[in-house]
């Protein structure tokens, strides 16, 4: 940029005036680019207009601060109008907070916090650090509600680990990325004692150049300890708790609000943060202890945008302003410019507000835990955010303007969807071979390689984990179940749901299906769905076809939640997941929670005994679009499974009634690979076979076996309970066979597969691809 556009301001520290007043459009654009602001010309003009009214040019600190606040990552400028239309309106009496994490009532005395977010761009460059700081960040979101983290969740979307195809320049191989991400999650979560209790892997070539590392966390608290993420009012003190600030993580949010390119590694500079779980662990204790003592008015984690976002938001939430002493912020080393300190996303930092009389007590508790804590500012009555360096004012912006940011109704086009009319059914080998192929697909195969590296039992609350069945013969479960209150059997179930391929082929149906799958997983263990949180990973919103996909998926997701009155008290949107014009698979990742009155009644997916009856609850329809079968064997088109929310509500209630009445021995969600894979998985985890007769389903055999229709469960029922079960299900339970033997037999499809043969096919692929496994 033209040197005439900047001028050094005399004072105690190096800051610059940026001469936006009177600058041409081209000059404004060059300022944005040269300073790495990520703002377009219209946005630069909006900021210029503000400073025209102030009668002066902004400082570099102010301009950088606004660029953070106005980034897609911080202000959701492309998505918030769409979210407002479809998801924000769902209310529920159990919602206690919609803060940095959502908070839901659990029982009379306790509540839980939930949130999921993305750490996609950092994980594409440095998977170990990116995924580790991802889990670190989401833990802070939960802690700043006053909650103890009790569960982590790690949905990861990567290219196939044995990928042999082309990769854009600068892209790192999926095997390297996956290994690093799992390692980063392991070393961070294990060191802070936050158990990763469930996860999901999604493998596809469209994740090769844009991997997704989503991280979720559930926390638990006494209701009376719920914290706001903003100050209580003017005259309070800001205490910065945790790590000194460094140059690591400068420009993280503007980096996350643009497409990745081959230059990203260089551009990112310090955009990937450095995690320090051994500092985080005592920070969690210190923050919770301070809150326990009732010393705080508010707490907020320093994540995207660093101090620049936190101070304004904590003041704005209280309807006040802030005076902040930037020179008081402890730094990792000399030489940091004021703007760098202000926007750095250095990890392991929390901001607390308290009354002046409590400051010493807050500092003493931090001292006890050897956690650095520093008084850095105070809230003021005047709604301005002002920064000082050695007493000299270097920043003075209206707090509302600082924290606001634009909201756009960007143009979109509704995407074409896959239909039956253009279906091409693939040629298939024998069904036995097909079932083994589907079981060994990376998207179905055992994730034990990763899960066994996570300290998933930490906290000692687990009743059901990611795997079910006896040790030495386990298979996949549906939802984790924890008992968070010592001595109580009330259970909290946690599950994921997402089908990126369905979403790609029909975004509206995919959005609906993500909620449906989450509910199915919760209901399968006997938990009543209670709330969801979502991480919406999509492409560049400035491209109308990408935004259309986003809009349709959000519409589907919101409609199902509204019909079920399932609140979404928190969420995250990650856009710009694309490289060189190629967008990621649209991925609306849903994390759901459910409540089970008595966790000792929880149901698991493993077949429990011989000669019991098997049913599929729900309708198996001709919906082959984007199915695992089609992806694996080259089918095209086809209807994509939709959801009838009334049906989901009805069957959810019937299933929970049946489980509550003790009629259900095992239950498993029917999803990727359809009925065939669901039953095979139940055989694997139960170590018991089954014989299927699918004559009550009115479709051709391959469609019966592999259709991925939503709102279905496979259920095992004892013979003597069959009549009662069928009556409760009122004709919605279709008999499909019975359990027994050591193989899965489907005579009409010429299938006879040994349980051990299926276990081999399911358990080996990922461990072998990742070079581990015994």
């Amino acid at each position, binding site marked *: 940029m033209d040197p005439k556009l900047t001028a050094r301001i005399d004072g105690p520290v190096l800051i610059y005036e940026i001469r936006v007043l009177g600058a041409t459009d081209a000059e404004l654009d060059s300022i944005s680019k040269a300073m790495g602001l990520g703002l377009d010309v219209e946005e630069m003009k909006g900021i210029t207009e503000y400073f025209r009214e102030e009668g002066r040019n902004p400082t570099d600190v102010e301009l950088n601060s606004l660029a953070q606040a106005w980034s897609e990552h911080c202000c959701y400028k492309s998505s918030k109008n769409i979210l407002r239309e479809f998801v924000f309106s769902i209310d529920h009496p159990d919602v206690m907070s919609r803060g940095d994490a959502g908070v839901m009532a659990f029982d009379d005395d306790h509540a839980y916090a939930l949130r999921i977010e993305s750490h996609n761009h950092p994980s594409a460059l440095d998977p170990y650090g990116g995924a580790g700081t991802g889990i670190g960040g989401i833990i802070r979101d939960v802690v700043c509600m006053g909650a*103890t983290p009790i569960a982590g969740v790690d949905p990861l979307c990567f290219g196939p680990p044995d990928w042999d195809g082309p990769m854009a320049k600068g892209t790192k191989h999926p095997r390297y990325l996956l290994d690093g991400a799992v390692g980063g999650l*392991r070393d961070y979560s*294990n*060191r*802070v*004692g936050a158990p990763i209790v469930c996860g999901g892997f999604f493998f596809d070539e469209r994740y090769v150049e844009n991997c997704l590392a989503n991280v979720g966390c559930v926390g638990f608290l006494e209701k009376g300890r719920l914290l706001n993420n903003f100050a209580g009012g003017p005259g309070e003190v800001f205490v910065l708790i945790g790590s000194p600030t460094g140059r690591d993580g400068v420009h993280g949010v503007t980096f996350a609000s643009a497409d990745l390119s081959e230059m990203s590694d260089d551009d990112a500079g310090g955009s990937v943060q450095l995690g320090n*779980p*051994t*500092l985080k*662990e*005592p920070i969690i*204790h210190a923050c919770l202890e301070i809150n326990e003592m009732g010393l705080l008015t508010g707490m907020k984690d320093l994540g995207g945008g660093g101090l620049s976002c936190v101070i304004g938001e904590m003041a704005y939430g209280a309807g006040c302003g802030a005076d902040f002493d930037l020179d008081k912020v402890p730094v990792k080393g000399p030489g940091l410019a004021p703007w760098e300190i202000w926007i750095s996303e250095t990890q392991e930092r929390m901001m607390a507000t308290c009354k002046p009389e409590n400051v010493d007590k807050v500092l*003493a508790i931090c001292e*006890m*835990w*050897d956690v650095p804590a520093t008084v850095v500012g105070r809230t003021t009555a005047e709604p301005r955010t002002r920064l000082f360096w050695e007493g000299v004012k270097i920043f003075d912006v209206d707090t509302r303007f600082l924290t606001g940011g634009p909201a756009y109704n960007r143009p979109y086009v509704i995407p074409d969807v896959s239909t039956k009319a253009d279906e091409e059914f693939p040629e298939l080998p024998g069904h036995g071979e097909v079932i083994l192929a589907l079981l060994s697909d990376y998207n179905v195969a055992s994730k034990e390689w990763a*899960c*066994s*590296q*996570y*300290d*998933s*039992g*930490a*906290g*000692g609350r*687990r*009743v059901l*984990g990611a*795997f*079910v*069945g*006896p*040790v*030495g*013969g*386990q298979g996949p479960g549906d939802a984790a179940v924890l*008992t968070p209150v*010592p*001595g109580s059997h009330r259970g909290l179930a946690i599950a994921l749901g997402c089908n990126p391929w369905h979403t790609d082929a029909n975004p509206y149906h995919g959005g609906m299906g993500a909620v449906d799958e989450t509910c199915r997983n919760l209901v399968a263990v006997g938990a009543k769905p209670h709330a969801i949180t979502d991480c919406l990973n999509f492409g560049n919103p400035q491209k109308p076809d990408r935004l259309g996909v986003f809009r349709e998926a959000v519409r589907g997701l919101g409609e199902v939640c509204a019909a079920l009155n399932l609140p979404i008290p928190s969420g995250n949107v990650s856009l710009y997941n694309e490289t060189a014009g190629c967008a990621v698979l649209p991925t609306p990742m849903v994390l759901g929670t459910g409540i089970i009155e008595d*966790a*000792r009644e*929880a*149901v*698991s997916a*493993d077949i*429990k005994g011989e000669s019991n009856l098997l049913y599929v609850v729900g309708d198996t329809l001709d919906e082959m679009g984007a199915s695992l079968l089609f992806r694996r064997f080259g089918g095209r088109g086809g209807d994509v499974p939709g959801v009838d929310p009334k049906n989901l509500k009805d069957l959810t209630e019937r299933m929970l009634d049946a489980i509550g009445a003790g009629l259900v021995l095992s239950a498993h969600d029917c999803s990727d690979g359809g009925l065939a894979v669901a039953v095979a998985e139940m055989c694997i985890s139960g*170590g018991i076979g089954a014989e299927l007769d699918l004559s009550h389903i009115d479709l051709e055999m391959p469609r019966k076996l592999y259709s991925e229709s939503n709102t279905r469960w496979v259920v095992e029922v004892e013979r003597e309970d069959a009549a009662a079960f069928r009556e409760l299900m009122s004709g919605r339970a279709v008999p499909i066979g019975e359990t027994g033997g050591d193989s899965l037999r489907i005579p009409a499809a010429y299938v006879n597969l040994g349980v051990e043969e299926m276990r081999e096919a399911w358990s080996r692929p990922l461990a072998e691809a990742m070079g*581990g496994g*015994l």
Partner: protein
Amino acid sequence: MAGKTRVCVVRIEGSSGADELYNAFAAVGAEAEKVHLKQLSGDCPAVLRRDLGEYDVLALPGGMAGGNYVRPGAIMAARLKTQIGKELKGFVDSGKFVLGVNNGFQALAELGLLPSGAFGKPTMAFICNPTGAYECRDTYVDVLDSRCAALSAVPRAKCAHMPTAQMCGGIVFETKKVAGRLIDDGQIPFVYAKPEGDVPKELWNPSGIPEAVAAVCNPAGNVLGMMPMPQRAMTGYSEPGWNRKAHAEEGLGAAVLRSIVGNVR
């Protein structure tokens, strides 16, 4: 002496297992307290000061104290030795009970308190799991007769569920003969047991030695280190597959902690 058994669960940064161990001791009726090491060493405000001698049990929790960046347990051991070494030695010499679970066991070995009881002279070490990876596994144990009198009320169970989770569960003694001798001498209260089903030896026996040592006590029986975690086996619902068979409401872990709480005074 009247009153409940007082348990001091020590915490330093990274000892993330303190809460679960505290909850488990509280559940079996102990008067448990989470105490930062600085409260024992006196590096704290006077009101927070705690005297180790006032407790009946010292419990070193699992987790990754100090991040486990040097050797497992090394940082916790070094802090204990330099900050409350004398008090700790006195506590052990007076016959009071010390339990180290997981990372806490590793610290007791590093301190030399296990297996020989020679404070400051370590004679066993932990190395990486036989698989070379962090392993969170549902392991099983046999309960053996031992010198650990505090465990006298624990049923002599066979193949009872008690999970492990660690990077370094491999055990190395000074010679290959030591493990067998410790079993003969009653210093091994628990050994790993193979569960039913197809479980590779490296997974059911992370100790990596044929004797499958899962826990060690000192010759006096008042210092006990365990890799399997009793606080995660408190109920019959912590074992995978619990809903496949008849099971007790309580797990072996509860029996272990209750026996300790009931027998140390």
